[in-house]
């Protein structure tokens, strides 16, 4: 059934780790960049705590540009950026640049929409109690939108698994690259199959863990 799997077992394990590496670090940076971006988007929106039309529109436009460029094109645009910053446009580290560029704006939008769910009344109550804007961000907006944020992280992580397969083909590394190079192009369908199954398992695990976290922090019902 799987004639090439034994000989390729090291390669398979390595590719799996590369995928997990790319996904987890991209996710980390996507959250680090996307969370404050999302908070700024919501705070500067009309009628919110710090309404500021120019900043809101500028941020919104940047986010939209990144989100409307197809990921495969974004990879090409991020090649010079990676080269400038880490000296190479090849390998898993270089792939992380385009992965973050593709997922952080997306995650920022998810943060913005889950924070929009926090009722005006609760924010007003906090203001009436003498909360600073900073207090409202940390003690109201973030905790109250936690289920949405965790769900957003989960969606982003699943998306990153898919993107990382593509990024791997261009920059090298991961299960996507293995499926393409060692599987499809080398006429080894069993490798292609194993790569697919492993990607499915990773996605399932991410989704399961994400759902678990969302349930843990959701006290709305």
């Amino acid at each position, binding site marked *: 059934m799987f004639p090439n799997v034994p000989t390729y077992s090291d390669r398979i394990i390595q590719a799996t780790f590369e995928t997990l590496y790319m996904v987890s670090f991209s996710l980390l940076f996507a959250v680090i960049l996307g969370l404050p971006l999302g908070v700024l988007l919501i705070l500067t929106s009309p009628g919110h705590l710090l309404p500021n039309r120019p900043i809101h529109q500028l941020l919104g436009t940047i986010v939209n540009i990144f989100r409307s460029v197809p990921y495969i094109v974004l990879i090409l645009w991020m090649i010079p950026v990676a080269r400038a910053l880490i000296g190479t446009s090849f390998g898993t580290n270089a792939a992380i640049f385009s992965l973050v560029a593709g997922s952080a704006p997306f995650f920022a939008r998810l943060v913005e929409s889950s924070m929009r769910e926090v*009722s005006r*009344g*609760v924010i*007003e*109550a*906090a*203001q*009436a*109690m*003498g*909360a*600073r804007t900073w*207090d409202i961000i940390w*003690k*109201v907006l973030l*905790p*109250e939108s*936690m289920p949405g944020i965790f769900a957003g992280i989960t969606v982003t992580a699943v998306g990153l698994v898919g993107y990382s397969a593509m990024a791997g083909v261009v920059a090298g590394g991961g299960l996507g690259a293995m499926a393409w190079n060692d599987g499809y192009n080398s006429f080894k369908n069993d490798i292609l199959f194993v790569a697919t199954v492993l990607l499915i398992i990773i996605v399932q695990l991410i989704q399961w863990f994400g759902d678990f976290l969302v349930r843990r*922090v959701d*006290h*709305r*019902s």
Partner: protein
Amino acid sequence: MNDKRMVMNDKGMTMKSKEMAVNDKGMAVKNKEMAINSKGGHAEESESFIRLKHVKKLYYPGTKREIAALKGIDLDIEKGEIFGVIGYSGAGKSTLIRLINALEKPTDGEVWVGGVNMATLTGDALRRKRMKIGMIFQHFNLLWSRTALENVLFPLELAGWPRARATQRARELLDIVSLSHRKDAYPARLSGGEKQRVGIARALANEPDLLLSDEATSALDPKTTDDILELLLSINRTLGITIVLITHEMRVIEKICDRVAVLDEGVIKEVGRVRDVFAKPQSAIAKRFVAEALDAEDVLMRETARGPVSEPATDRLLTSSGETRRWRLIFVGEVAERPVITELIRQHAVEINILRGEIKRLKDTPFGTLTVEVSGRLEDIQKARRYLEQTGVIIEPPGEE
């Protein structure tokens, strides 16, 4: 179950406030001062505790969407009283109450609270002032991500209390609102009444001298409404906290308010002691609210009950020959508890036919209305009217027979 809790609550209040006195001496002293103020009827300053001077509020000024929410409000609220603002939705109540803690800024005019012009406060000064003004809401506005106890901790965290003391204080506060047994429950698991109790505990956290209530009972059923009103009343009495509330329900006004302002289309149409407004509403809108609280037909009848009644409800044969009048008698205060009608019949040659009647309590004041038909000779009817008016009964329609 609810009844039991309320009874326990009433008893609990005195105990709790004693505990609080032990825990927090400064507060107890302050309360005593306030109690003296509220009893004496005048605050330390010659100025009122809350004073709105010619306040106007426009939304979207200068644009096509411009709306005048408040059109020149003058209002004085004294320390220690429970002051109600009643109006239909859109009357400007929400805006009015939010001016007091500067969640809304007036377009024109001034808002003074405790001798401070709210417009002059910014940054930390405003935040500290707001900490001394508690607020509760129609939809409770609790953080669902926090338990009841953690919700009460929230304002203490904002005020920078050390964790251990804050927790201790939050427990005491939940005790005051009889909710200690639910301290670890998330709001989603609490009933409406319980949520509002958490809201009240949270509002009291930083020892405010003023509590703002924004339709706090409007989302609750009548029984729970009464429980919450009872709680607000005992907080006002034991802690001496001034309460300003807005509502569209006369029930709330009559149960706990000392004075009421009737707000309509951004204008105060009437303001006065609740018993006076109930007894003699001046404005059309106040009459409508009183009518809703009493018997609608009863008050509307005031408009039509002029002159002799053409169709007495009773058989003519049963009444002695002579005149018949339909009166609406209003009893305010202790006269409502005296056997006035019995005396009237004993001492006067008139017959009384009672058509409808109602007695209720306006906070501490007994208040009754009685619609009667009086039959007899004109002379005796006139004497009866004089007798009633001497005892303090208000008769509608007024005047001579």
